[in-house]
């Protein structure tokens, strides 16, 4: 077993929030696709970056909107494992419920589908995205970006 598993991806900075309370991110899967490797690694990086991560699992748009409101999250991360139209519909539902809530997305998202999400103002992290870029994006979207950070510590 690799000893690296005990090491941390912790950033050099303190937890993300500037007002003391950690920022909360809902990570949810849009498809009935249970691959969890990607979301697991991203959730770990975000937690190490000082965020509180709430896992929504495989959720419908209605379930994601409800969880986002009930959990009073600052950011929603959509793990898009299916067709981009499903993600687009969920983004529409989220914005109808809470227009101010930032959203980012990751997963197996083909370039053409990524362009559609980007056109909606959603930042997209396809496979191979660097974890520090994802954490920086979460900080920017929640208004908690420190001057300069790196998850590689």
């Amino acid at each position, binding site marked *: 077993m690799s000893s690296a598993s005990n090491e941390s991806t912790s950033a050099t900075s303190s937890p993300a929030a500037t007002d003391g309370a950690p920022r909360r991110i809902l990570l949810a899967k849009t*498809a009935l*696709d249970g691959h969890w490797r990607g979301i697991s*690694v991203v*959730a*770990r990086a975000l937690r190490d970056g000082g965020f509180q991560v709430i896992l929504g699992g495989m959720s419908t748009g209605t379930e994601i909107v409800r969880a986002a409101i009930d959990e009073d999250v600052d950011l929603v991360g959509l793990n898009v494992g299916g067709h981009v139209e499903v993600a687009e519909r969920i983004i529409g539902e989220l914005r109808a419920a809470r227009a101010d809530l930032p959203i980012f997305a990751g997963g*197996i998202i083909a370039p053409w589908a990524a362009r559609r999400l980007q056109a909606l103002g959603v930042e997209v992290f*396809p496979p191979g995205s660097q*974890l520090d870029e994802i954490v920086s994006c979460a900080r920017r979207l929640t208004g908690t970006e420190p001057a300069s950070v790196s998850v590689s510590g």
Partner: protein
Amino acid sequence: MHSHDQRPPAYRSASGIELKASYGPEDVPAEHARVMGVAPGQPPFHRGGFPQGYRTKPWRIFQLSGFGKPEDENERIKFLLRNGETGFLMEHDRNTADHLYNVDHPDVVARKEDVGLTGAVMQSVRETELCLADLPIESTFGHAGGAVVQHAPFALAAYWTVAKRRGIPLAQLFGTGQSDFFLTYLGCVTKQQVPTAPGLRLNADIIEFCSEHLPKWVPVSIAGYNGGDTGLNAWQELGAVMANAIEYLDEVKRRGRMDMTVAAQRVGGVNFRTTMEIFEDAAKLRAARKMWHKLLTERYGVTDERALRMRIHIVTSGAYMQYQQPFNNIVRGTLMALTAVLGGTQSLGVSGYDEAISIPSEHAHQMSVRIQQILEHETNIPAVTDPLGGSYYVESLTAELERRAWEFVDQLLAQGGFLATLDSGWLHARARENQESQAIAEARGERKIVGVNCFKEDITPWEVDGFPPVTDAYPVALERLNAVRRERHETAATAALRELAATCRDPDRNIMPVMMQAVDAEVTIGEIGDIFRQAWGDWHTPKLV
């Protein structure tokens, strides 16, 4: 940059085995050195099951394929066969098949555009017939789908029913259906599925049914691939596969209805992955065959050599295919396929170069076949069996992987066995540790991936935009579901469902004969799923993330 980290850079295999700068005879442990010179075709078979290797039997070119409507999948399979594929695989829609839902289930309707994205929708035998239209199932090795344990009884019964309707005797059919615990209990965990204990019962039922009616069929195929791509390293993958086989063989033995030699042959078609870790993964296949021989002789007292040869199917790792600069993946696919061939695989699927982007386009699929054909016909590799045999390095890796894998088997058995470690989430935790350490190594640049975390400049003039999804899979499936409900013989369907429910409650009855009747009566997967859920409830999914 990492001033706190003063360790010298160590050379290690992907699974953590420390690597020397070169190897000599002293690096091969005595136990292994003793069998190093044994010829291929001789026990313990690490050098291959057959003395002539690929001279007498080339590996099967066997690509996962399918999407959209059954007609779309049928067309793609024909395309692959035309291009030289020598067996075919059916892929079922994840939303409906994996969960045993019909398309009008609320969880499917909520994301109806996803339907058909990664496999064709087959809710009743009518749709399986469309998918298999004009395919030579009497003479071609076919994978009926049913990679998911709870889905396998339906998928197999539907395939076999199509054959019966064509007048092909079941005993003539050869193929497989996988029915794999690594997939939806470890790597791609469904939202809802039967617990592992009834899952084991279903697999044992399939094994027994095949031994009676389909002697040439590979009833289940343990897929270490799915464990590997979720995070298990090479010796964990090996150990977990052996522990999984122990579950099947112990259960068959407990039932006492099958000869263990036959059972061993039935369970001995196994799937692993190869990655870019060329020598460790080639050694993994050699270690697997040796371990299989030891497991069967020592634990089950099997002596018939035909039953002691493990047959291996390899899928090249999808997780090693990159989104960035996707044409680099043609090189990666070639190297991973080479690894499989050097390790002596019987069957091979190469992930598409667009694997990280979408399901394979026609071109990506064709390239996956061409990679295999180039290896087979242009390299002269198939001329010699076990070409790595006798390499001090490879033999040392083979022995070390085996040693670590047996230790891992012991760890699994000490916790109640493979299924118990799925139930408890222990195996998921092992995968997660490796996922995280790999992610850290990539973030730090210690693990370099060309085009992803280094050498990122890209002048490729062509964009790989991903295979466009079929847009009418959902409405067509809904129409077909309603047609089946309208047109089928309702009395027969209801009676078959009642019989299926009764069989689920009686562990001494085999579910497959009743499943065959139900499928023939045009029962749908959603109805079968409802019966399974009533009988067995839902698996208590352990913590994953």
